[in-house]
């Protein structure tokens, strides 16, 4: 048999039947309040049950307010959504971590935090950034509402195996650069359609040295390169993160599981459909200047000139993006006036991210005219950060310290960027209107976001 990639192995272990479009088993189904109500109603209408409530978990994240959490919520639609989610989960016996519970958080943050995300699994969620879980060597991808219903009813999905892509990251990135900068640099290099139809496996020295949190950030953004998902083979870093997590195997089971997981890697001579090698030696902090995550440049650089782009489609897109962003070709990135800074999301709302931002912020004050908020990825992260005193660092500097949720990443809950103003955001999408109508988003790392809030201009570190 030909040597296999990690994805091929995991896929084969989950195929139930079929050729071409195969029926595959789903090991964990994550559910949030926006893409699930109609799926539960579909079950009710057809008299079906949730086949495996013990492989299903729900939380409220997209629509929850991050300021006041007094119930009942003032927002009528939000209130109905949250009440309905509680009702659905009770009726169908699904574990739920609702707003104002200790386990609540962004769906892609709480899975790994609880140890529900393990190597070799298949994981789905009605949300595109499910790829986050691939950081543990799991095959994880986003699905639509009717597929949510399908998984609830059958614990399976029918789909074609994605093509395999190896992205090998060589070199040593600069000390100022983070996993977020790596993610942006990869998309900058291969484009927002570079991974289309593929599931990307990341390998190489940059990955070997990357923390678990960083790997989640990178896999999270694999879909912004057009890929179905991203994944990284488990190693000592993975095991160290998982050991002792609430739902991960314990004791003798842990040792046995760990031994099995260490075999979850692509064969050295496995053949990938597509291979990309990038030398990231000396990579510095990145920032997006346009309206897709591929429109990225160095944060100490300048807005590119569309006229210099060879590809007519890219040129046209750049012209449109600059128009929306209100930027001129050649303008220094550092001159772009920032009004909002958002630190949070399933990309960069974990404890490591908050620590990195707090380190920059400590002893400084947010620049005049800037609204800056920190939204922890989960209630547990919020409490851990508070135990470390990070919230005091942020609030003393003039940041708002919020409750966990998706918040300004998707701007569904009322946290929005003012129209026509620029925001530095640690989230994953800089599409037109993503952070509110007319919002002009610049994606950056948590450190860069923190430095930007203090200096009042896009920056990776504080000038001394």
């Amino acid at each position, binding site marked *: 048999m030909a040597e296999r990639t990690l994805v091929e192995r995991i896929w084969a272990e989950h195929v139930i*039947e079929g050729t071409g479009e195969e029926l595959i088993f789903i090991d964990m189904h994550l559910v949030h309040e926006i893409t699930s109500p109609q799926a539960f109603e579909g079950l009710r209408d057809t008299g079906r049950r949730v086949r495996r409530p013990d492989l299903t978990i729900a939380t409220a994240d997209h629509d929850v307010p991050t300021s006041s959490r007094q119930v009942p919520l003032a927002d009528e639609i939000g209130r109905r959504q949250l009440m309905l989610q509680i009702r659905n989960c009770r009726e169908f016996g*699904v574990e739920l971590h609702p707003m104002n519970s200790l386990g609540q958080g962004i769906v892609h943050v709480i899975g790994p935090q609880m140890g529900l995300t393990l190597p*070799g699994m298949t994981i789905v969620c009605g949300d595109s950034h499910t790829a986050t879980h691939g950081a543990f060597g799991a095959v994880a991808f986003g699905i*639509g509402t009717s597929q949510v219903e399908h998984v609830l009813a059958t614990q399976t999905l029918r789909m074609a195996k994605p093509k395999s892509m190896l992205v090998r990251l060589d070199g040593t990135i600069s000390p100022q650069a983070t996993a977020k900068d790596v993610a942006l640099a990869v998309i900058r290099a291969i484009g927002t359609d570079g991974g289309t139809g593929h599931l990307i496996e990341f390998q190489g020295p940059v990955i070997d040295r990357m923390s678990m949190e960083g790997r989640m950030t990178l896999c999270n953004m694999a879909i912004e390169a057009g890929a179905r998902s991203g994944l990284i083979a488990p190693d000592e870093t993975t095991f160290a993160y998982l050991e002792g997590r609430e739902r991960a195997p314990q004791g003798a089971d842990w040792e046995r599981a760990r031994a099995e997981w260490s075999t979850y890697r692509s064969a050295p001579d496995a053949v990938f459909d597509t291979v990309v090698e990038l030398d990231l030696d000396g990579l510095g902090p990145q920032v997006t200047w346009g309206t897709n995550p591929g429109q990225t440049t160095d944060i100490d650089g300048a807005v590119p000139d569309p006229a210099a782009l060879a590809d007519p489609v890219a040129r046209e897109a750049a012209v449109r993006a600059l128009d929306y962003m209100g930027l001129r070709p050649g303008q220094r990135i550092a001159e772009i006036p920032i009004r909002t800074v958002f630190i949070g999301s399933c990309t960069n709302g974990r404890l490591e991210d908050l620590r990195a931002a707090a380190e920059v912020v400590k002893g400084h004050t947010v620049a005049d005219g800037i609204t800056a908020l920190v939204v922890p990825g989960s209630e547990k992260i919020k409490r851990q950060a508070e135990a470390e005193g990070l919230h005091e660092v942020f609030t003393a500097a003039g940041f708002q310290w919020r409750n966990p949720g998706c918040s300004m990443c998707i701007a569904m809950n009322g946290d929005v960027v003012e129209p026509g103003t620029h925001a530095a955001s640690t989230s994953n999408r800089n599409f037109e209107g993503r952070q509110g109508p007319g919002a002009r988003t610049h994606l950056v790392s948590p450190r860069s976001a923190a430095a930007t809030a203090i200096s009042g201009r896009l920056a990776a570190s504080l000038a001394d």
Partner: protein
Amino acid sequence: MDKIDSITGTAVPIDASDVDTDQIIPAVWMKRVERTGFQDGLFAKWRRDPGFVLNQPERRGATILVAGPNFGCGSSREHAPWALRDYGFKAIIAPSFADIFRNNLPNIGLVPVTLDEASCRKVMAAVTADAATPVTVDLVARTVTCTAAGVVDVPFVIEENARYRLINGKDLIDLALDFDEQIRRHEERRPFWMPRTNGQVEPAFELSGVEQ
């Protein structure tokens, strides 16, 4: 889902190409948590015009929509097929559809009828001229008939899998559950370390620590 052999009824003509899902149902309707009741959102922007075809009393009770090329393009929102179904449509005839939209229709019992451009034009003209013109979509014979348009037993295109599901009244979930035995066998051989959830709704904590 109901089994469908053939559909005969009056039709509503929407004579435009590239009608996107935002025209079929505006984004504001996506905030609803229900899965039915989207009929009032169907073509909501166009219905503000009293002369719009859907507002004509003689079009009431129509079960067939006749549309232009590339119907259902744009965002893949599943609310668009729901709105068409809730309004009472059972089949959509068009020279072409956007892929995802076409694939979504049979999941809720709607028949996507891809008919050659010339026949489509004729049917469009006939049903526009007279609202009482009957149209028949025969799923078993895979043909469209609209005698007034001179279109008789003209073959149309539909994916075999979609046709099978519609004729047998099965949705994708039914098809997957046909393999219940195989799913069960897989469930029995899953590795020991696969995690489980607990089925509980976690209680809320005291709100005292929350700002504002």
